[in-house]
């Protein structure tokens, strides 16, 4: 469910709660009003009943017939008002209580009627009237009291329910809010984790169940970005290779010039001495030309091999042979830069499972950087040795160049970071970093300004039973 929908739903639930409570409060209010209306009527009735009892007392004391008339008038008035207020009384006390009240009133009225017929009160009749009157007023009183109590109860329970509802709504709002924000934070963390791996150069699509909400869309977007980045990384790899190629070309041009010169000199001498040369000499001359052509072919092949875009093809390799291959590419560049090379390769190193071509690219890049760091010549050390843990191999490329200032060191593997001004793309080391990382390896740097820089590449050893997944 989308976060938007969740929020709407939580609001709807809380809103429904509020409406329900409002409706309940409204109902209670109506009930209280009805009861109060009855209490009002009951008070009037009670007053009438009291007046009746007063007249009744007068009659007994003074035997005044007028008092009986008064009572009769009061009874009929009360009957009328009871009848008129029926629709207010029934909802409050129910029909049964009303009927009982009416029957009590009737009994009182009958007792009065009987007294009237006989003309004067007897002892027996007197007590009958008194009993009916007492019963009437007591019953009326008790109903009124009961209703007062009920009103009180209703108000109290409304109060309780309102307080309870307040807490319930507060709790539900907090709970739902917390749940939703928890979900959002959790997903954001997930995305943060995923994007972190992307920032480290792992352009793998994010796996797992994709939530069907906004975060799912974000993940989809990140995945397509990842794909695009992986695609771009390939392009950068290739363009960086072409950039190294430019630097290598200067060395290679020199390398090609020598066999070219040899062929040219053989041809000139051959023409000059043609008549003096025997058949054997001529064949020997041409054999030399052929050998020199082969030299050129090798140089060109090496260069083409390096420049061609290639799919990663990891194989079990001896790291020293990869280093040797690299040296043939860079040796001339090193020579023309007035740099002495010292190569110290350890024999019998464990094999590595690498794409030789990519590792070669990293080494060419490191050597190129070293050469560029030593414009006035210097010394370049290239070495291989077992890694510290014993289950890896280490290659070091060390120069005696100008070094990297400490404030730049943390950034040198960042894309587009360059200290070479317009001369650098700032991609060489970031591409190298990406390649080594893809090989589950590590690339480290140590540098001291004015002393030199050492790059160390560590690649895990390859054991036949343990396939190293290279993507």
């Amino acid at each position, binding site marked *: 469910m989308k976060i938007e929908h969740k929020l709407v739903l939580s609001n709807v639930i809380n809103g429904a709660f509020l409406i329900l409570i409002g409706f309940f409060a409204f109902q209670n209010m109506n009930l209280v009003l009805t009861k109060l209306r009855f209490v009002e009527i009951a008070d009037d009735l009670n007053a009438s009943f009291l007046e009746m009892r007063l007249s009744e007392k007068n009659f007994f004391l003074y035997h005044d017939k007028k008092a009986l008339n008064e009572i009769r008038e009061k009874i009929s008035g009360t009957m009328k008002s009871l009848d008129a207020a029926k629709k207010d009384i029934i909802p409050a006390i129910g029909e049964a209580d009303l009927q009982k009240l009416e029957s009590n009133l009737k009994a009182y009225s009958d007792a009065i009627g009987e007294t009237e017929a006989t003309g004067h009160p007897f002892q027996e009749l007197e007590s009958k009237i008194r009993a009916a009157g007492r019963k009437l007023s007591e019953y009326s009183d008790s109903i009124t009291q009961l209703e007062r109590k009920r009103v009180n109860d209703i108000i109290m329970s409304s109060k309780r329910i309102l307080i309870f509802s307040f807490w319930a709504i507060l709790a539900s709002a907090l709970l739902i809010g917390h749940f939703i924000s928890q979900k959002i934070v959790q997903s954001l963390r997930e995305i943060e984790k995923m994007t972190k791996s992307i920032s480290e150069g792992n352009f793998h699509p994010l796996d797992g169940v994709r939530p069907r909400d906004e975060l799912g869309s974000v993940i989809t977007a990140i995945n397509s970005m990842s794909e695009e980045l992986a695609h771009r990384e390939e392009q950068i790899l290739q363009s960086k290779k072409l950039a190294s190629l430019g630097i290598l070309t200067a060395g290679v041009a*020199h390398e090609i*010039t020598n066999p070219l*010169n040899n062929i040219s*000199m053989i041809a000139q001498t051959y023409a000059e001495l043609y008549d003096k040369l025997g058949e054997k000499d001529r064949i020997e001359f041409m054999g030399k030309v052929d050998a020199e052509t082969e030299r050129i072919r090798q140089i060109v092949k090496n260069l083409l091999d390096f420049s061609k875009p290639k799919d990663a093809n990891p194989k079990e390799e001896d790291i020293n042979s990869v280093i040797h291959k690299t040296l043939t590419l860079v040796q001339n560049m090193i020579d*023309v830069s007035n740099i002495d090379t010292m190569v110290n390769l350890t024999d019998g190193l464990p094999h590595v499972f690498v794409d030789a071509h990519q590792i070669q690219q990293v080494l060419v890049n490191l050597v190129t950087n070293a050469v560029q760091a030593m414009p006035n010549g210097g010394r370049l050390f290239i070495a291989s040795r077992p890694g510290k843990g014993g289950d890896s191999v280490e290659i070091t490329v060390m120069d005696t160049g100008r070094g990297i200032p400490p404030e730049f060191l943390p950034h040198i593997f960042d894309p587009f970071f360059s200290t070479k001004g317009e001369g650098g793309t700032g991609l060489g080391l970031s591409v190298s970093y990406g390649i080594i990382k893809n090989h589950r390896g590590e690339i480290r740097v140590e540098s001291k300004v004015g002393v030199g820089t050492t790059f160390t590449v560590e690649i895990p050893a390859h054991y036949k039973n343990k396939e190293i997944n290279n993507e």
Partner: protein
Amino acid sequence: MSNYRIMVIDDEKIVGDMAKLSLEQDGYLVETFLNAEPALARLKEEKFHVVVTDYKMKGIDGMEVLRTVKKQYPGTTVIMITAFANLDAAIEALRGDVHDFFPKPVKIKELKESIRRALAKTSAA
């Protein structure tokens, strides 16, 4: 025009071989070396009129040969050849009083012409 001694120093064996073959046709005495150390040692034993040296070599390079020869054997002409044709190298060589500077591939006729001029100069002097 005989008895002129010419030394060729180049780490490419074919350069020495071909130069020797061709220059001997003109009657020069030619000795070739693949690097500078034995060549400089040989100079101590024998006077050479012309030294043709490669610019870029392992160990002692062409510039050092030029400086040593100019210092110790001022009468000897130095001609430099190089596969690494750059202006800085040429200027540096000319400052070191090189007689001529040829980028590879070398035209043997031009090289011979340069040698002839150098020898004419020295014999005139």
